[in-house]
């Protein structure tokens, strides 16, 4: 089978994720966009693995999912902490990390 359509879908998802990170102010939405990018990459990898008839793409995807789960734990706790202290999850408001 041809992976073309899967790759197109992955590209579209990745682009949506990228644009979401860049334009959304809400940290939660930006975070979800990051997840979307990760899953777009996962989809592309699975599609390519299927096309090549190997399993390495699937295995790598599992790794990415595990790492993403861990990242979600850390990321969400940071967002919650920021929300608690600032009563807002806007990434533009959290701009203290500069000179």
């Amino acid at each position: 089978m041809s992976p073309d359509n899967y790759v197109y879908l992955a590209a579209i998802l990745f682009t949506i994720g990228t644009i979401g990170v860049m334009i959304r102010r809400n940290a939660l939405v930006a975070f979800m966009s990051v997840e979307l990018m990760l899953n777009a990459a996962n989809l592309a990898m699975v599609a390519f693995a299927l096309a090549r008839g190997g399993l390495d793409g699937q295995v790598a995807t599992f790794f990415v999912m595990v790492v993403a789960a861990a990242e979600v734990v850390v990321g969400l706790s940071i967002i919650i902490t920021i929300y608690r202290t600032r009563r807002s999850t806007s990434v533009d408001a959290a701009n203290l990390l500069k000179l």
Partner: protein
Amino acid sequence: MITLEALAPVAATGMFSYAWLMIATPAVVAAILLLFGSILDRIGHWLAVAAVLFSFSIAACLFAQQLQSAPDARAVAVPMFEWITTGMWHISAGLLVDQLSILFALLVTGVGALIHIYSVGYMAHDERRRRFFAYLNLFIAAMLTLVLADNYLVLFVGWEGVGLASYLLIGFWQHKPSAAAAGTKAFVMNRIGDLGMTMAIMAMLALFGSSAFTAVNAAAPHLEPFWATTIGLLLLLGACGKSAQVPLQAWLLDAMEGPTPVSALIHAATMVTAGVYLVVRSHAIFEMSSAASTAVVVVGCVTLMAGAWIGSSKDDIKKVLAGSTMSQIGYMMLAAGLGPVGYAFAIFHLLTHGFFKANMFLGAGSVMHGMDDDVNMRHYGGLAKVMKVTFWTFAMGYLAIIGVPGFAGYFSKDHIIEAAFEVSTVAGVTALIGAGITAFYMTRLMVMTFLGERRWREKVHPHESPWVMTVPLIILAFFSVVAGALMNNWIQEWLEPATGAHVQETALMPGPIGWATLLVVASGIALAWWIFGTKPVPNVAPASGNPFTVTGRNDLFGDLINDTLVVRPTLAVSRGVVTGDDRIIDAGADGLAGVFSGLSSQARRLQTGQVRAYALTMTIGVVLVGAVLILTQLA
């Protein structure tokens, strides 16, 4: 000029292999005195005296052995160790005990021992006496290294060593700013002379491949005239620095800030005569260059007049003696520059001067001791009655220096004047007039100090010094009387192999020049007596418009000349350099730093803290990298 073939020194045997102990003993004692601290306060000075006496006994034994051996076996080489071995250079350190160096060793250790003993009394109430004796011993060790060295590099070690000891001792009373400054001045002015010394040694190493006296003496006759003149003038520069000859004379008068025994030992009897030793030791080079030896004569003549001039116009007893020392060393330089006719006389005068000048300096110290350290002769007067020993011993030195027949200075100075007339009338007349001025200022000193009415300050009770001070005075006075007659006929013959000069006839009875000298000396005495002996001496120096007096009181404006010619231009140059450093180099560095600091404060605006902006930047970057990768794949 006919010179003898230089004889190679024989190898050391027996006593001679222990010659190094002469240097090692005072050096070790100096180290002990400095390192072991106050536990040696009570006996340290006697330890130092013992060390010098030990060195003197070795020197005396070696001298006795030399007297017994055949004339061609008297110069003994004592190799010690390989000093420098690098590349093509092999420089060994060794001692050369020959006819010339043994006389110096005897003078240094003999007069040195007497002055050590004298200092036990003179420095009795100084809480830093142990340190003083450590420095004195250090000086003895360095001076012996200087005169016993068998090559110029080892000589230079001693040369610097005596410079160090001189610096430490001039500035010994360091709580006095003037003493500290005088020490620094002597040190700095000596560096100028040392520049000449080092350059001369480097030239010798480059030309001869060795700095050993034997090698230099053997190779000197084949030297090109240019190099002979260059090395000769550089050595003369070194000698001028060490011996306080014009134009490097200004430090000696300030050096009188040191304790009086130091002035007697270092700045009269031994160290300041090292320049004369250097010239005589390097005679082979000076004989190859008439320009260099003429320069020595000129320096000698100028200094003998300059010193006498200063001596005539000072009221400070030590400065009169210092001027006189300059003047007498001028005589020695003059003799050393005359060529083979003068070498033996230069050394002769050096030895007799060592005795009578040390005698008079110590006498001056004894007077100061009794007068509560007052040095102004206008506050003395009539001391002959209360300080009998000092007066009579001083009188012996006085008669010796002005050249009264039979006393030491008569023989040595008369020979120099006669030799000077043989070579050049100008030098001869200068030496003759110098003898008259010597008589003038020494008579002035005697009259103002010991004769006439008492002009003492209140609460000053002059008294004779203790025996530790008077015994050395008596011994030195004895030699001031007899040294000349003892050595008169003997010294030329003795020094012949070392200086390569033939013996000349010297008559005991004065010749026509001798009578002329006596006449000039007598008129000098008469003039001084007429001015200072027949009228009361004013308590303060009368203001004088006489340019001779003004110039003399200001040390011939030596400091002014140095200030104008050297110090101020140097200061101006260094201020200019500092300004240049501040305005150009520092400003450049600061400007560069400012540029970078400005750039970085602009660059830091990129850091906005806006996460979305960072995300955008990252995305653009990734897109760019991706585009480049794809485009290069396509190309």
